[in-house]
């Protein structure tokens, strides 16, 4: 039984299937997710596969600052992913709502609605940071097994924002507020 659990953990870490969900993103991060699957970065070496159906997925990749319209959809899709599952928030938008902070059309950030395991900040993040975030999420998922994700656990933060992009201004705004 112990051997079977170790094998299962090993296989879960090496076979993360993604479902990509756009929660009001500007399409910048979505293009970077696709870029991480292209020949230059080739995430399939880690067993990553972009799946068409959330039922098949292990890791939910959310981009965008979570608009009011997207909240219900995010909760539905999160429920449709069968466990063990993990959530990766890609870009600065789902982490902090970025330049759209204080907008009345937003219900973000993402971790108010579903438990987030890994944040990949950046506007947009580099494909290698996205791949690192997915690999971290796969390791978290393998360690956690079938236990439900707790909303209170401290999420991982992968990479850092280069500072030349729009989210620096929003951070300054946050400091002033």
């Amino acid at each position, binding site marked *: 039984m112990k051997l079977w659990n170790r*094998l*299962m953990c*090993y*296989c*879960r870490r*090496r*076979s993360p*299937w993604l479902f990509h969900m756009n929660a009001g993103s500007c399409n910048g991060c979505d293009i970077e997710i696709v870029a991480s699957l*292209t*020949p230059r970065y*080739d995430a*399939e*070496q880690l*067993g990553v596969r972009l*799946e*068409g*159906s959330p*039922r*098949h997925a*292990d890791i939910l990749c959310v981009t965008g600052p979570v608009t009011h319209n997207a909240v219900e959809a995010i909760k539905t899709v999160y429920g449709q992913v*069968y*466990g*063990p599952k993990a959530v990766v928030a890609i870009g600065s938008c789902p982490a902090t709502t970025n330049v759209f902070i204080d907008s009345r059309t937003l219900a973000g950030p993402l971790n108010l609605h579903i438990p987030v395991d890994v944040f990949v900040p950046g506007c947009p993040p580099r494909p290698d940071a996205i791949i690192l975030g997915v690999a971290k999420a796969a390791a978290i998922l393998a360690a956690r097994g*079938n236990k439900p994700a707790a909303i209170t656990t401290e999420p991982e933060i992968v990479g850092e924002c280069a500072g030349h992009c729009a989210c620096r201004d929003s951070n300054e705004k946050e400091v002033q507020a």
Partner: protein
Amino acid sequence: MNVLITSLARLLIFPGIVFAVPAAWFFLWVERKAVARMQGRIGPPFMQPFYDFIKLVGKETPQRTGAGGMLMKAWPLIAVSAAAGAVGLLPVLPASGGFQGDLILLLALLEVPSMCIIAAGFSSRSIFGEIGSAREAVLSVSYNIVFLLAILSIAASQHTFSLSALAQLPASPLRLLGIAAILVCLPAKLHLNPFSLPNAEQEIYSGPMTEYAGPELAMWELSHGLEWVAATGLVATLIAPAFTLWWVAALVFVALSFFIVLLLSVVASATARLQIDTTVRFYWQCTLIFAVLAVASALFMRFRA
């Protein structure tokens, strides 16, 4: 008694389950790796289909209730057992038995997974599943005519419906024509580009598989892999010359199947998905003529002989 033991050994050991399941994973890996190499990527590691299978087995099982739920649980199991039975019928080893008419049984078993996919898509009651199933049904009506006529022309030209007899006989030019027709049908049978319409990724989500998850999806992946082994194995046994040494026969069988998988994957990565009406027109207008010609000439040669 002896016959029973031989057929059980064929079903369970070689070329049945003990051989066919690792072979299915290997062929799934060859397909993904070949597509990756064609796109200039490195591709998944060697054990990837095995990791995927174990991971899917360990995922949560969807709760399904009622008759519809029971059917949805049953379809992948029926598909896997039919595909495994089809692999077990292949006459890989010389003097491995077989009976008159096992070719017909093999064709029937090869058809079961695709019927299960159609039924699964409709019983999942998802709109994407229903679109996928409708496409699979239309596709299966189109390619199966050509596929069956090609097999029929081979069987008619050599006077037998027994697979082992067909494997022993030397290949005639007419049989090569039939094999070419079968190869044209295989991409549609295995849902590969340019005929990957039923499971068209990113177009209708995952088609009939949209509502499947966890261990059930693992069974679908396995049945797809076994279909690979059975379909390429059928072509390999028709091409391969007869050997008396059993290990030479087995090696030649595996090598030929490997090259057919490679060929199909390269074609799949080099082409884009066709529309459903173009696909149907391709099979009914372009390919059917050759299949009918092949059957007609097979019958003609038979009457002349």
